[in-house]
């Protein structure tokens, strides 16, 4: 049996080659799909280009895209809107997610069904969810208006998508609905890894339910909480389809986030250079934010 001694991966000295070999396809893929386009984007952002052609000579280097970006009120508006959205949606996703996880963690009849229902919004495709919510909040025929009028909260129908504040609220509601199951599932996994004895010890020590929540549950969940928080915030930051299908960024740019703005500039107005600049700025913000928030998360993961 002639087996090449050089390629024998079972030898102790060659063992780690297997690791590299297995990683190679993934690394190549990431390089092609993520790293290379990223590089091209950064390159584009320094050119004054409308529709780029990769086989034509490169246009001259210029920083006008960035200059235009930082002096445009639209950019700052989009940044502010993105920030608002991230904070509000993350906060409510957390409240709702943690709450449902705590509830569903108890043993009761129909527990498995409850867990399934909690996870359902996550399974629904984003566009489908948006269509449903768009109809619920429809100005003339929507469920929400009917409920509001029935309850006597308003006398006349609210045009949800004509009012900047209302449209923003609707987008928030849709995103929270879509996002909280993820938090719920992560929290649930975390809750189940807390040893029962902690709670027993606390009970014997005389802690009531609220004290147990604050002193045992939350601190024990901190690692999971931290990671989940980052993932949710990044998701809200970059989410495109929910906002695009629901309001397209309007009305009056009330729901225009950085990702919407990037898309509009690139494919609506065919200004790829400018759009790439926005994309690069978005990337930098995300990287910095997650690095700050991550802290010691790698240990916990």
């Amino acid at each position, binding site marked *: *049996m*002639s087996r090449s001694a050089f390629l024998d991966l079972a030898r102790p000295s060659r063992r780690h080659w297997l690791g590299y070999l297995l990683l190679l396809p993934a690394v190549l893929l990431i390089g092609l799909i993520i790293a290379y386009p990223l590089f091209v984007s950064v390159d584009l952002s320094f050119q004054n280009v*409308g*529709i*780029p*052609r*990769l*086989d034509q000579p490169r246009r001259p280097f210029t920083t006008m895209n960035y200059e235009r970006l930082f002096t445009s009120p639209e950019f700052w508006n989009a940044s502010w809107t993105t920030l608002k959205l991230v904070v509000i949606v993350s906060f409510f996703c957390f409240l709702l997610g943690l709450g449902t996880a705590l509830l569903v963690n108890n043993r009761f009849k129909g527990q498995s069904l409850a867990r399934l229902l909690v996870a359902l919004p996550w399974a629904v495709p984003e566009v489908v969810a948006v269509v449903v919510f768009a109809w619920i909040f*429809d*100005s*003339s*025929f929507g469920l929400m*208006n*009917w409920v509001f*009028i029935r309850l006597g909260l308003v*006398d*006349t*129908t609210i*045009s*949800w*998508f*004509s*009012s*900047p504040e209302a449209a923003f609220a609707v987008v928030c509601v849709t995103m929270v609905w879509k996002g909280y199951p993820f938090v719920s599932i992560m929290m649930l996994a975390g809750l189940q890894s807390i040893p029962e004895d902690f709670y027993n010890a606390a009970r014997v020590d005389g802690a009531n339910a609220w004290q147990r929540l604050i002193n045992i549950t939350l601190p024990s969940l901190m690692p999971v909480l931290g990671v989940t928080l980052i993932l949710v915030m990044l998701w809200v930051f970059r989410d495109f389809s929910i906002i695009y299908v629901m*309001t*397209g960024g*309007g*009305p*009056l*740019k009330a729901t225009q986030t950085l990702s919407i703005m990037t898309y*509009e500039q690139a*494919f*609506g*107005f*065919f200004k790829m250079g400018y759009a790439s600049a926005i994309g690069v700025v978005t990337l930098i913000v995300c990287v910095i934010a997650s690095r700050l928030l991550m802290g010691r998360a790698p240990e916990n993961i």
Partner: protein
Amino acid sequence: MRMLDWKRLAAAGLVTLGTMTALPALAQNKVLKFVSWQKDERGTGDWWGSVIKEFEATHPGVKIEWTKVERGAFADTMTTLFAGGQPPDIVHLASFEFQKFAANGWLEPLDPYIKSAKLDLKGWAGQDTCTWNKQNVCVMMLYFGYFMAYNEELLKKEGLEVPKNYAEFLTAARKLTKDINGDGIVDQFGTGHETRGGGGQYMSEMMNYTLDAGARWTDENGKVTINTPQMIEGLTRWKTIVKENLTPRDLAAGEVRQLFADGKIALKMDGPWLWPIIQKGKARDQIKLTTVPFNPPVGGSSNVLGIASEISPENKKLAWDFIAIATSDKFQSSYATLGASPPPDPRADTTGASKETPHFDLLVKATKAAADAKVDRIPKGLELQFNEFAKMVMEESQRMIIQDLDPKVVAATMQKKAETLQQQ
């Protein structure tokens, strides 16, 4: 030894397999790529299918690969294809999108082909729009004019006559907007417009009122003419209609049309594509058609056909053959019948169409009225920036409605912003 042989055999097998699959591709027929959003559309889709069939019958060994891309994503997809150096051979574009492609030199100038094929484009509706840099870069496939559809029964109930001008229209719309079942929510509307979605469609809806007020976005020379008394009047009318909720709010065009077809809206101005939708609606039997109570009607070029400039000369010739078939009098006539729309070819025989579609003559009348008034959605001088311009108009109009601004101020704002866009 045996293992090595096995490996060699496997390697040889793979190579053979690879070659075998490649060979058929080389020996196969020529394939022309044709991308359109009208595939699977009732009427027009069938017509395209007939053109393809004729082409393949007269060109053995050549097949047309017909792909559908949604209207919403069409511009992005085409841009990506062209930018990536993989354009379709036969280029189908909406009339407000092709300018960008022409500006990049991606559309083959068609004059040599037109001359040698002796294609007579005189009187070809909307063909002016296809000129770029004094050359024909495409052929107009549809130019249309709006008509008005109305629900006879709803009007009868209120004792109203069909409106003939804006004043009557406004009165009728006001009377017809009410709460039918008494739950406090308005469920019947006088008219219907899309107020959510892209800028292009929003502008078209507005133009129902601005054109009648005598306003244009730009003049013949491309100068912006928004800050004019006529446009201010037009803006005021639009504001009235929307702010008084005479139309359902925040619906997309398709949804509005469906509501009308189901009898929830009384008066609707729209293009020829409304007809098949009405046919499938609940209120089919109560709906009648007439001319719009405005002058001129909204109209404009719809879509164009061209050839990609960066394909092989052989493919260009074949693509032209395809266009030749589509623009032949025979197929322009069948377009009238199948597509229920007036074909741009002035020589097309539309008698068959008139028999099939009872309102065909109305369509022709509307098209003529719009064409004579040189109405087009795409303002001259702002073709390249159309998307941005449309978005700006939509936003400022929305701002006018939401913040209850004076149309005079709004017109001035729009004027300034449009001029800035032009200078970009």
